């Protein structure tokens, strides 16, 4: 049976837990920062330890292979330069056409590279922490991308690091547009607990006709994500609630399970 001191201990710990849970959000954020910053020295130590094998491998790489890599990179660089020149010409043409049609000019994306330093230890969230914070100008709700497509948005910001809530987490819903003739619009939602590359596209109209392979991009609605960021492609679709609306599974371009570096998009 429980002794009196057991009840006292349970009461004391419950009180402590309730105290933390009832704190205002701003205080909780500061406390999280204070406790979380205890891990920062370990985090940088871990990053150094992870870098060490790569550095060692660099030291023992044969000269011939390095020269081959340089030659390959030079060729790639030449190709990219030509592509950049083409893109710049097309961009100029696009701006001129926009001016002629009096459309609003598109602002170029300002992006900053960040390293993923930690993942959520709990299995019921899909968040990561990156090494860019408010000191680097990061604010809440900024879009986060990979080189393949959209990854998520900034959920919480501290001076030196931020928390990114990834697509597939219930707290990250994205208004999405399908690149089909009807330009159907839906909301990308959580799916695929075990598969990080799947998400659900919900709230599509009941008459939407989707084909596997159609591209899904951000719609620009909602004000968080700018229009046109690639999200993924349609895998399959089904009618829900007796044909009232349509749902589809989306294969995400970004592999959220193996994220190491992401781009934060500034407005």
């Amino acid at each position: 049976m429980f002794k009196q001191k057991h009840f006292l201990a349970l009461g004391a710990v419950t009180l402590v837990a309730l105290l933390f849970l009832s704190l205002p959000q701003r205080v909780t954020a500061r406390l999280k920062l204070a406790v979380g910053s205890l891990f920062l020295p370990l985090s940088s130590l871990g990053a150094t330890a992870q870098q060490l094998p790569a550095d060692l491998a660099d030291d023992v790489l044969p000269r011939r292979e390095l020269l081959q890599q340089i030659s390959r990179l030079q060729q790639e660089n030449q190709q990219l330069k030509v592509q950049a020149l083409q893109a710049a010409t097309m961009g100029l043409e696009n701006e001129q056409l926009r001016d002629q049609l009096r459309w609003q000019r598109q602002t170029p994306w300002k992006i900053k590279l960040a390293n993923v330093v930690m993942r959520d230890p709990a299995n019921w969230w899909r968040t990561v922490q990156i090494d860019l914070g408010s000191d680097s100008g990061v604010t809440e709700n900024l879009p986060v991308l990979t080189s393949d497509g959209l990854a998520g948005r900034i959920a919480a910001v501290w001076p030196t690091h931020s928390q990114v809530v990834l697509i597939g987490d219930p707290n990250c819903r994205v208004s999405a547009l399908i690149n089909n003739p009807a330009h159907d619009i839906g909301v990308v939602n959580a799916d695929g607990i075990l598969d990080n590359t799947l998400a659900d596209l919900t709230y599509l109209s009941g008459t939407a006709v989707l084909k596997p392979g159609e591209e899904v991009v951000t719609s620009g609605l909602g004000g968080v994500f700018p229009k046109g960021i690639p999200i993924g492609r349609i895998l399959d679709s089904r009618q829900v609630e007796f044909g009232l609306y349509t749902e589809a599974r989306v294969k995400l371009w970004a592999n959220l399970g193996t994220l190491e570096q992401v781009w934060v998009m500034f407005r």
Partner: protein
Amino acid sequence: MSKPNTTLIYVTAFLAVFGQASLPGLREWFGAQVDLLPALIVYAALHASLVNLGLLAVFGGLFFDSLSANPLGITILPLFVTGLVLFQQRDLILRDLAFAQGLLGAAASAVVPLMTVLLLLSAGKPLLLGWGSLWQWAVMIAGGAVATPVLFAVFNGFNHAFDYKLRSESSFRPDREIRRSRI
């Protein structure tokens, strides 16, 4: 339990949470991360004082929640309640048997996330839950069952290394020694 061992428990809790957040662990292979805090709570419940058990639940919970999207403090209560139940029954538990340790680790690893999820749902938080969560839960239980005996072995080894050793009783009695002398 010796002071170095108590300190080691807190340090291990800190490192375990850091490891869960920064290392892929079983996440890449099995789609779920194993939580080592329930295994630590089992050890603390069977070896530490009630105060240390409470402090481990509070600090371990705070460490975990600070790196997670959980509200700060939500993990404290599940850890402590699980530990308290074991603490109250600890005289009846065969704590030196690896099988018992594994079973307790599995039970704690099952109860702690379940209680945390129930608390989060009752707080109205939308969670990433589905049929796949059952698989994740099974991985966590299996991970806890394996990790607990290992932690017990490590802590017991540490305890033997730093604690005062028991003086072994010898059958030799000086008063009954047969002394040699000249006849």
